[in-house]
């Protein structure tokens, strides 16, 4: 209560209105490119050229359907979903298992292995993607979904292990000991005690891993040439060079890709923000 009174005192009524207005203006400036994109998706080339600010004369989702169809957006989205889903699953499972080992066991080489993973937090993509690409080419992994799932999983692991280990370290030993005394094996302890306890941590890891896999571009550009396997970023780029001169269609495709992300963000905004802030503080 007292906070709010204090706020009223300092901000006051009229400045408060101005303040809100300022926020609105900033938000509109930030949001405008996206609005323009959606408006333009309903326009013809000549309308985009001659009246960039005008509202579209008609809202025809036929353009969107056309973009979805000819742009193979559905295929790209499916590929992105498969690659992201598999990578996130891999990161969670492998990351939790590794975090469990680091947190609950003392063993030879522990510090070395943890150090190697910690190095992964610092290493930029540039340090490995050249040799990774020749390796994948030699093993004939390129142009399969594995060419993305494997590196995305590997890239997500260091941070996942680090964060999940922090969660597990906070769990009192007694919980695990009690289970052991009941005769539970290591795998049981991991599966029935550690994993459930890790749930909030796993959700956080899942969110930022999913976002980075969904949006990754450079490796997808290098490893996937087959149009049927492209993910949204590279697929959209391919689309934009195939149908470049039909701007309305291109804006439709951009809108189709953008809107679900906005909706996902509005619905899961708290989880996403938590995930991203936790993910960034590595």
């Amino acid at each position, binding site marked *: 209560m007292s*906070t709010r009174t*204090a*706020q009223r005192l*300092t901000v006051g009524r009229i400045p*408060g209105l101005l303040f809100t207005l300022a*926020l609105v203006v*900033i*938000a509109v400036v*930030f949001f*405008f*490119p*996206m609005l323009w994109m959606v408006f*333009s998706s309903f326009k013809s080339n000549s309308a*985009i050229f001659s009246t*960039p*600010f005008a509202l579209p004369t008609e809202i025809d989702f036929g353009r969107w359907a056309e973009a979805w169809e000819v742009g193979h957006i559905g295929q790209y989205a499916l590929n992105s979903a498969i690659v992201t889903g598999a990578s996130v699953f*891999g990161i969670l*499972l*492998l990351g939790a*298992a*590794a975090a*469990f*080992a680091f947190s609950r066991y003392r*063993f030879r080489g*522990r510090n070395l*292995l943890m150090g190697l*993973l910690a190095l992964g*937090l*610092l*290493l*930029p993509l*540039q*340090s*490995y993607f*050249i*040799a*990774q690409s*020749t*390796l994948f080419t030699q093993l004939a992994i390129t142009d399969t979904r594995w060419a993305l799932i*494997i*590196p995305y999983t*590997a*890239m997500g*692991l260091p941070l996942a292990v680090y964060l999940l280990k922090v969660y597990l370290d906070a769990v009192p030993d007694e919980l695990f000991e009690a289970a052991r005394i009941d005769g539970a094996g*290591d795998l049981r302890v991991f599966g029935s005690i550690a994993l459930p306890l890790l749930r909030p941590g796993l959700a956080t890891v899942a969110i930022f891993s999913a976002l980075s896999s969904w949006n990754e*571009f*450079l490796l997808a550009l290098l490893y996937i040439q087959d149009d049927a396997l492209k993910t949204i970023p*590279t697929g*959209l*780029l391919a689309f934009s060079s195939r149908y470049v001169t039909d*701007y309305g269609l*291109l804006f439709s495709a*951009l809108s189709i890709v953008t809107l679900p992300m*906005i909706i*996902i963000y*509005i619905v899961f*905004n708290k989880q996403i*923000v938590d995930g*991203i802030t936790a993910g*960034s503080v590595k």
Partner: protein
Amino acid sequence: MKPNRRVTPYLFLVPAMAVFGFAVLFPVVMTFAYSFTEWNGYGTMQFVGLDNYIEAANDVLFRDSFLHVVLYIAATILLEVAVGLVLAGLVSVKRRGSLWFRVAIFTPVMLPMVVVAVLWAFVYNNDFGLLNAALVNFGLEDLQRVWLGDPATALLAVSVVSGWVYAGFYMTIFYAAFSQVPTEVIEAARLDGAGEWQLFRRIKVPMIRNAITVSLLLCITGGFQGFDLFYVMTNGGPYGATEIPTTYLVKSVFTFGNVGYGSAMAMVLTAVVVALGLVFARVNREKPEKVNA
């Protein structure tokens, strides 16, 4: 149980370490090895010692690419971290109803950079782009230019897009940090007659110094690794004005087939990023803070 237990942790670790070793560690070692060779990616490989590193040191284009990325990082520190900080300050003054605001500002973070890049290439388009059209509407025709085609503005134009995306990201981090500043501290300062600006400058910002340090690290190391925006919007042009190390080495390796030389450049870049990361890690350790993001 006992003898078994000794193997157990390794069993839990094997899958993760196998994938990480296969896709990251082994390639790092190999890239390092390639950097001492001349190789086109499939033909015969020739050991050339330090030649590639000497070439990199004397390569004006490579040096320029570092200059560009440093300028870009400087711009993004302002446009992302500083703007994000100010936005978070604004929002934290007035929490109620700020969700829609945070949604509007944060949304770009969710989009693939390629989508952002394609969209903004249109915003900057000389012939029907939003920016030039807006300048006409405000009577500022003189400011119109070919934003991505003018070497004087191209780098800044790309930085602005980066700012558009990440200002919301840093705002979110700082907003979370601000909300952990104890209310008593703020109350006390208010009672002493501090205004909102003073509160922001003297109390809130100092108290989230850790979050700011981390954000700067993210912004700097992330900047060195930038690629998507540059590749799609300018591909290094105009006249090489936006050539950054990654676009340059990608061209070198994958267009011209200079795997050895590209690997050497990649190693130089890696050394810079890792060194910065270690410096920041040390700085952060020396100044422990209570409030973190």
